[in-house]
């Protein structure tokens, strides 16, 4: 009840109307940011909401005569700490969302009830305190806010200040120790890697480049072998491990197989030339009767219904051959 009266009646020491307006605007921003941090399921959104809250609090500090703390709040909290949070969010996985599954039954409801009760207790405590008058910082800030803080920090609180230095050094060392990983093997040089590739008979030439088509030329599109099957090695192994390889599309592949079959028919080659080693780079058996040798025949006969497909096939024929040589 005290709270209501203190809000309604201007007490002995009341602030200016401008500060009141500023307070209500900032309070709304701060509380909305805090609730957004609580309710957003993605960690990045939570971090951005918290940054908004911290900026609003920084302006609150400035309005209350704490100029140094306001600046430090912006520089340290929104500048350093929140950026550190964002770095770790990006490192740990930006796409991970909080699970909705409750491990303890009814924990969320119980936590919300506890939170509301705690808030009521806190606010009731403040409302019962005698806070009608306030002194203000006019005399304390007379020689300058920074100078006043410096005088206190380097006289009365100098021991705490020195201990803080030790704490910061410990934190820096601790972070390095916790995130450091020992190298388990000696790093091999480029020359050694090349020698090993030749010795083991692995692919010596560069891997084939990804497919370039009329619609997609991204790195996640595999190149097509002469028979229309995708060349797996033309896509980065990271994308393959993540299953992010884009499908070329059965329409295009079917069209290529059709062209191949037509060419084979026209040339009278019923039995396709079997080549060895193609299975290494082939994901699936080629659709229809594969005739890899007939690629030039497609262009030669002017069957240019799908120029992009033909270009891709011709472009990739050489890389497919490189695959098989190795």
């Amino acid at each position: 009840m005290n709270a209501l009266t203190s809000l309604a009646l201007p007490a002995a020491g009341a602030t200016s109307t401008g500060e009141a307006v500023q307070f209500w605007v900032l309070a709304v921003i701060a509380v909305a940011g805090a609730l957004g941090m609580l309710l957003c399921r993605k960690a990045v959104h939570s971090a951005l909401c918290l940054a908004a809250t911290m900026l609003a609090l920084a302006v609150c500090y400035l309005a209350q005569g704490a100029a140094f703390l306001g600046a430090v709040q912006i520089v340290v909290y929104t500048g350093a700490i929140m950026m550190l949070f964002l770095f770790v969010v990006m490192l740990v996985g930006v796409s991970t969302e909080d699970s909705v599954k409750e491990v303890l039954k009814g924990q969320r409801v119980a936590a919300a009830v506890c939170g509301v009760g705690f808030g009521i207790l806190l606010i009731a405590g403040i409302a019962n305190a005698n806070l009608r008058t306030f002194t203000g910082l006019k005399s304390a800030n007379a020689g300058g806010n920074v100078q006043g803080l410096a005088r206190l920090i380097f006289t009365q609180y100098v021991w705490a200040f020195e201990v803080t230095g030790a704490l910061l050094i410990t934190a820096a060392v601790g972070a390095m120790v916790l995130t450091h990983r020992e190298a388990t093997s000696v790093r091999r040089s480029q020359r050694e890697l090349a020698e090993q590739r030749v010795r083991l008979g692995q692919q010596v030439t560069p891997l084939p480049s990804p497919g370039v088509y009329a619609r997609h030329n991204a790195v996640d599109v595999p190149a097509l072998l002469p028979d229309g099957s995708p060349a797996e090695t033309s896509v980065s192994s990271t994308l393959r491990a993540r299953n992010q390889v884009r499908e070329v599309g059965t329409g295009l592949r079917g069209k290529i197989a059709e062209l191949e079959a037509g060419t084979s028919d026209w040339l009278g080659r019923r039995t396709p030339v079997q080549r060895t080693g193609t299975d290494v780079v082939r994901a699936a058996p080629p659709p229809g009767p594969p005739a890899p040798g007939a690629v030039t025949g497609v262009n030669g006969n002017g069957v240019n219904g799908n120029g992009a497909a033909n270009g891709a096939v011709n472009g990739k024929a050489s890389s497919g051959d490189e695959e098989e040589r190795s």
Partner: protein
Amino acid sequence: MNPANYLYLSALLFTIGASGVLIRRNAIVLFMCVELMLNAANLALVTFSRLHGNLDGQVIAFFTMVVAAAEVVVGLAIIVSVFRTRHSASVDDTNLMKQ
């Protein structure tokens, strides 16, 4: 307006932070909630400094900021190293002692 309104704002923010620690399961968001609670305490300290007319509250808020920075550095390093070994940032998955 009475400066005590800043104290109500601080109490509200502290409550939201505390509820967040209880509700959220992502370790990084838990840390953000702790940061929010520290910020709310700082706001209360700055307001008390103004109510009493001396700068001690601001000095203590300054020390709180330094401690918060150190805490975040170590805490996030722990989260990163836990994520490396367990491949999860959820506090529910860190139950090795239970199994």
